[in-house]
């Protein structure tokens, strides 16, 4: 069995590790390096500028707008998705067909979702204004993506719309493993459905909910594709839908400020990591073990 073991291992691992090193590891490491330079992609040797890029970030109105909007998304989207998904998962108990339907948006590319919803929000021929007129709410018609106060909310609704189904399936699968007899015992002791949900179901499925918080928190710090495709500008109107990822993309590939864009990437990385760790901490609970 020992014969040729190392030859096999080297042969098997060299290609995947080379691929990973060249396309994943080296760019990540280079990003930390570039973030301290003012490289514009043309000069042969990037000039070291220390912490200048990070200082600029704090006075860059566009980056701060992106930070604010991602922050708002972080407050709204995970909470909304988890609340809706928990309610629907509890309600779909015994009727699986709904889950099959709810899950479908999860399979669509975020780019396709963005194009679809751009049509939905279109002022004159869109689904939303058409629906409002159809039920006599003509005064509610809006140019949804053209009004600075509404545009970001419209983007968040799309994010919620496309995420809920996945968590309905995740949570309802977890709920099915909650033993019936505990629920029945609680009901006999006089617990109403709300108490049963809060005191029994939720603690027993908490691990899934925790996963949801972290994934959705990370997703809320992105939003690039939806904003880039759906909104005017993109990032408009009046930068009301600017997100950090869009700022990075524009800084790098429209303005050629690759050093500064890398600093944005580093900032996004540390933010994402801190939010993930924070959410992990905040949502930590005593793990409930079923004997």
């Amino acid at each position, binding site marked *: 069995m020992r014969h040729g*073991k*190392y030859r096999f291992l080297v042969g098997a691992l060299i290609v995947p590790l080379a691929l990973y090193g060249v396309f994943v590891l080296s760019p990540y490491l280079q990003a930390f390096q570039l973030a301290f330079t003012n490289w514009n992609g043309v000069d042969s040797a990037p000039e070291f500028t220390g912490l200048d890029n990070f200082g600029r970030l704090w006075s860059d109105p566009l980056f701060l707008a992106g930070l604010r909007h991602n922050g708002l998304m972080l407050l709204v989207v995970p909470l909304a998705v988890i609340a809706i998904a928990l309610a629907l998962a509890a*309600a779909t108990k015994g009727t699986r067909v709904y889950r099959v339907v709810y899950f479908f948006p999860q399979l669509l590319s975020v780019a*396709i979702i963005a194009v679809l919803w751009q049509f939905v929000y279109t002022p004159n*021929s869109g*689904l939303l*204004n058409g629906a409002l007129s159809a039920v006599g709410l003509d005064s509610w018609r809006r140019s949804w993506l053209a009004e600075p106060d509404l545009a970001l909310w419209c983007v968040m609704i799309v994010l919620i719309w496309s995420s809920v189904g996945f968590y309905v399936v*995740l949570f309802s699968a977890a709920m099915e493993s909650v033993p019936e007899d505990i629920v029945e015992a609680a009901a006999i002791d006089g617990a109403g459905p709300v108490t049963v949900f809060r005191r029994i179901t939720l603690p027993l499925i908490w691990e899934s909910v925790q996963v949801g918080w972290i*994934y959705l928190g990370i997703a809320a710090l992105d939003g690039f594709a939806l904003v880039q495709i759906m909104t005017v500008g993109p990032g408009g109107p009046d930068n009301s839908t600017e997100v950090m990822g869009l700022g990075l993309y524009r800084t790098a590939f429209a303005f050629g400020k690759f050093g500064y864009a890398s600093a944005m990437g580093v900032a*996004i990385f540390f933010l994402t990591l801190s939010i993930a760790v924070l959410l992990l901490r905040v949502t930590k609970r005593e793990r409930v073990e079923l004997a």
Partner: protein
Amino acid sequence: MRIKHAVLTLWAALVTLPLLWAFMSSFKTDAEIFDSPWTPPAELRFDNWSRAWDQASIGQYLLNTLIVVGGALALTMLLGALTAYCLARYEFPGNRFIYYLLVAGMLFPVFLALVPLFFVVDNLGLLGTYHGLILVYAAYALPFTVFFLHGFFRSLPGAVAEAAFIDGASHAGVFFKVMLPMARPGMVSVGIFNFLGLWNQYLLPKVLNPDPDHYVLAQGLAELAVSQGYRSDWSGLFAGLVIAILPVLLAYVFFQRQIRAGLTSGALK
């Protein structure tokens, strides 16, 4: 009970209505779309679909996507399974180090790598090529694939492999003929997970694939929608959108149970 069903139906309507509406609109004329977004078309205009397929290049984008996603998926599964197997079943110096190095790739947002990645791909002359995208896709899908399959290969019994070694099988032979077939359930789950992840890529092709002839579907469709040209052909764009959705819908109809199980088990890992 009543309220419960009303709520369930309401969300089902919210999910399906935009999709059904896009399907319906793909058969209408531009005038019909503008005048009354809610009424069905006077007749089914399939020429919208053929226009989207040919003139708007949706057919070409679909072909590009199949080549890139197919190639990347095959490469990811082969390399991911091989790596996970070696790390899970062989003792050698550096084993843990390599494993954690690979798995650490899952922690970083792609945005961080974006700028240097662009230049790495550019310097290798791979910008806007099929094989360039395939290599990058596979590299970024590798960490999760290895992480998922590592646990799977660990849990497989060792007796069968030992018997095969005694019978004189080579290391590669044991992997391909004995262990890989036993890992099939895990391969299916992670394969579905990867397929959808790769199929839905937007950020990577947006940056690394600037050649319109090589656009993948999501990218091409978004490009059509964002560019000014679309205002002249709404119905064609609706048709393109529906063509892009249909393959996934069909796959879901046939494999919905496996797909949901594959995706959710991936999340809980």
